[in-house]
């Protein structure tokens, strides 16, 4: 390519400029500009279309993003076969004819701005460049392979809807529209990422969501300076307030029904193009203890199970530390029978109990991590080896006493019942901190740890909403759904007008 060598270095500079400064390039609208910009990209197709002997136009599109059949059938074919076109002598006439609708296509745009053309080109538009007029027609020919809607993999649901979000933004928004046929459902779109130029959509229900919240979210999203939005945390880390915490502050879901019910609660959803997980903000601690299945089962059962979830989270957090505290500081607090059996199991184990606890706790986490990372072909090995190590072998080898195994395993199992896995990990980290503290000074250390944890939660806010809501700082409002799930019959009455009042 001759043009390439001519402008090579200059183009390279322009390209970096575009990336770094988001600058507009100042190039003439001609095919050489495109060729320069996409010099080494072989998926960018440049076609020279000879309409007749005098008239040649250039068609540029990205293979894979644009639908090739559409391009052929509706652009190339008419241009080269229809008499209307073959008879045209000069470009002016051609423009008039195209403008007149002879190339019948849904969305046709005329421009002389290379920037716009490049931007749309990368979204699957076909660009028809007219050499002399320095004008381009943009044909919306988007069409690429996408995954079809499937059953959610991470959040299983027994009675709820079984569809899950996919990578394509438009499919996702369509799913929302299908579930909520109201003009109040607002789906705003922003482009984030200097290089990736990813579409990020903010959806909420007008009238229920807090306007201030929407506004501040919009501002925060606009402020994001990043190259790419390929991962959710890129957005998450920008919109949350407290960075230094292991606790999740954004709720993720791949289920449209959960997403919609969150919108109805007055919260705001964020969908990122290319990521099948959507974000919901603001969140508070309650959200991490709820699942969508809660709303498709009997309310009494669900209320009890929810209560148990909180209890189990407390068990996961406290029990190992408590065990360490009472076995090394407050022996009088262990029931007599238990104490005797603990003594008999502790015999011959070389480590102090708190080291056993920490080791084993880490071992359990190792198993989870190994299970997640191992190749699926040998996945069965983890449970096998894990069961061997944590189970019989460690005990018979006197590495770890059975009592500690029982306690840590109970805590681990309790931890797995927390519906939100990010939250569960954070709880595990605090579990280790509590074990350390209680190994220093027993129960007192544990309580100091708990005070620190409460403080940590108390000072956290997500988009200005307290993390501990509705248990704290809400004056008891909005707490009806925290632990006890009330009947929908009662909920319906207040849902729309009450919610908007609360959020004011």
């Amino acid at each position, binding site marked *: 390519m001759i043009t390439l060598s001519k402008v090579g270095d200059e183009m390279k500079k322009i390209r970096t400029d575009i990336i770094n400064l988001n600058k507009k390039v100042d190039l003439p609208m001609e095919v050489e500009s495109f060729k320069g910009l996409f010099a080494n990209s072989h998926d960018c197709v440049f076609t020279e279309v000879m309409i007749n002997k005098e008239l040649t136009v250039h068609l540029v599109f990205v293979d894979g993003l644009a639908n090739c059949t559409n391009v052929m059938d509706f652009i190339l074919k008419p241009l080269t076969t229809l008499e209307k076109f073959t008879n045209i002598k000069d470009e002016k006439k051609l423009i008039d004819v195209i403008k007149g609708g002879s190339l019948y296509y849904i969305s046709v745009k005329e421009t002389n701005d290379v920037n716009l053309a490049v931007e749309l080109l990368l979204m699957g538009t076909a660009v028809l460049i007219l050499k002399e007029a320095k004008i381009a027609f943009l044909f919306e020919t988007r069409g690429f392979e996408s995954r079809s809607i499937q059953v959610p993999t991470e959040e299983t649901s027994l009675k709820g809807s079984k569809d899950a979000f996919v990578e394509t933004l438009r499919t996702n928004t369509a799913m929302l529209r299908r579930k909520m046929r109201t003009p109040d459902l607002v789906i705003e779109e922003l482009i984030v990422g200097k290089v990736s130029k990813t579409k990020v959509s903010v959806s909420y229900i007008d009238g229920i969501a807090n306007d201030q919240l929407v506004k501040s979210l919009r501002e925060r999203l606009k402020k994001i300076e990043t190259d790419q939005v390929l991962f959710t945390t890129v957005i998450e880390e920008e919109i949350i307030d407290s960075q*230094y915490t292991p606790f999740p502050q954004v709720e993720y879901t791949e289920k449209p029904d959960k997403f919609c019910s969150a919108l109805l609660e007055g919260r705001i959803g964020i969908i990122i193009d290319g990521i099948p997980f959507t974000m919901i903000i603001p969140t508070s601690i309650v959200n991490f203890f709820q699942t969508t299945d809660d709303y498709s089962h009997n309310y009494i059962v669900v209320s009890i199970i929810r209560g148990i979830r909180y209890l189990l989270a407390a068990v996961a957090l406290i029990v190992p530390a408590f065990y360490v505290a009472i076995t090394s500081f407050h022996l009088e607090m262990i029931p007599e029978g238990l*104490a005797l059996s603990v003594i008999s199991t502790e015999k011959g184990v070389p480590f102090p109990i708190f080291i056993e606890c920490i080791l084993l706790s880490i071992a359990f986490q190792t198993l989870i991590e190994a299970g997640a990372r191992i190749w699926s072909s040998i996945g069965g090995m983890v449970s096998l080896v894990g069961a061997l190590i944590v189970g019989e072998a460690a005990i018979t080898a006197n590495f770890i006493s059975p009592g500690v195994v029982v306690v840590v395993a109970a805590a681990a199992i309790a931890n797995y019942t927390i519906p939100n896995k990010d939250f569960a990990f954070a709880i595990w980290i605090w579990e280790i901190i509590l074990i350390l503290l209680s190994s220093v000074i027993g129960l007192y250390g544990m309580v100091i740890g708990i005070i620190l944890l409460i403080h940590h939660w108390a000072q956290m806010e997500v988009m200005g909403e307290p993390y501990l809501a509705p248990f704290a700082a809400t004056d008891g409002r909005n707490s009806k759904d925290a632990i006890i799930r009330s009947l929908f019959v009662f909920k319906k009455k207040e849902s729309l007008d009450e919610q908007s009042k609360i959020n004011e």
Partner: protein
Amino acid sequence: MIRTITLTLFVFILYVATGLETLVGGRMDISDAFYIATVGLDKEDDEIQMTIVTKQYSPKEETSQIAKQDKYFVSVGRDVFEAARNFNSFMDKETFWGHVSYILVSENLAQKDIDSALDFFVRDHEHKLTSNVLVIKDARAEEAIKLVTDSGEDITTKLKVLSKGVGALSISSELPLIDAFNKINNKYCSCYIPTLKIVEDQKDEPEEETKEASNTENEKTDEKTKRLVLEGYVFFDQDDAKLLCSIEGGTARGFNFIINKIKSGVIVVKDPDGEYVNLEIIDSKTEIIPKIEDDKITVKLKTKMNSNISEIHGEVDIFKADIIEGLVNQQNDIIKAEMQSVIGLVKEYNSDLFDLSSVINHKYPKKWDKIKDNWREVFKDIKFEIEVESKINRTYSIKKPALSREKEKK
């Protein structure tokens, strides 16, 4: 936020660097603790001798040999606390007092001062307040512990079985430490503590429960069969907590009738032929009803009792109204006599054995306010009445005795 992390890090580094061992004392790993289950207290001249036993748990099989070696330890000190501390000078584990189930006090120590013997167990923060107090009669606590432990049994389990078994006879009961302490504290009523004794000859004892429990151990030692028996009470003076007297057998049951600690028991009466009829006590309730008339206090002990016919020796069909009534009357007399013997003791020692003071306090709070300062003198003049109202309600599967039919035929 960053401060949380800094603080945690700081604590962690401090911890790793020093282990905080020097700062924080009092760490006792559970495997280093010697769990005391039963404590024996004896008087040795001017000193107090303490015997401690751990509870024998069933250890892993390999280690069972080692576990059996350390059975009991003995230490001596001027007072209880010193004796307790002296253990640390020779034991390889730290003594841990949080799980003491039984405190055995020998009679001679109880005679001297029961309150100071128990004070240590109430004051120290480690101790349970629900452990039981027993007085060993005519023997040393160490002896009792030795007796059971040497035979390979666990004294704590043994005492637990005994206390459970004693309910079948209702000749003693369990007394938690806190109740004993409460009673010693209370200057208006005297304290009672259940007693334990060592019995050498087993044939005279009619109790079946204890016999069975002790049979197994006795098989090993042939020459002299000694065993522990839980029976009766000792009483302490209400003012200075000196040992007054001890009761056992029927009197002890009479006392149990008064303080409502009857669980079950056996009463033997005779049918018209002079043959034995055995009655089982089902329940009993005694109301202490004080009455004040013209500044004179009379106290009525009203007992309501139910019993079953559990065994009939004779051939008479006793299920006739008049015969039953006769049996009931006999039963009443027996109970009355038992209770009367307690009243006799009360009069003899002029001591409020069964917490009459609180009953009067509850019923006549105003009057009590006036008489409480010279309660002992008032107590002297109190008249006691006993009223027993008992019933024989039912029998078990068989009604008439087997031989009664033969008799009818003749």
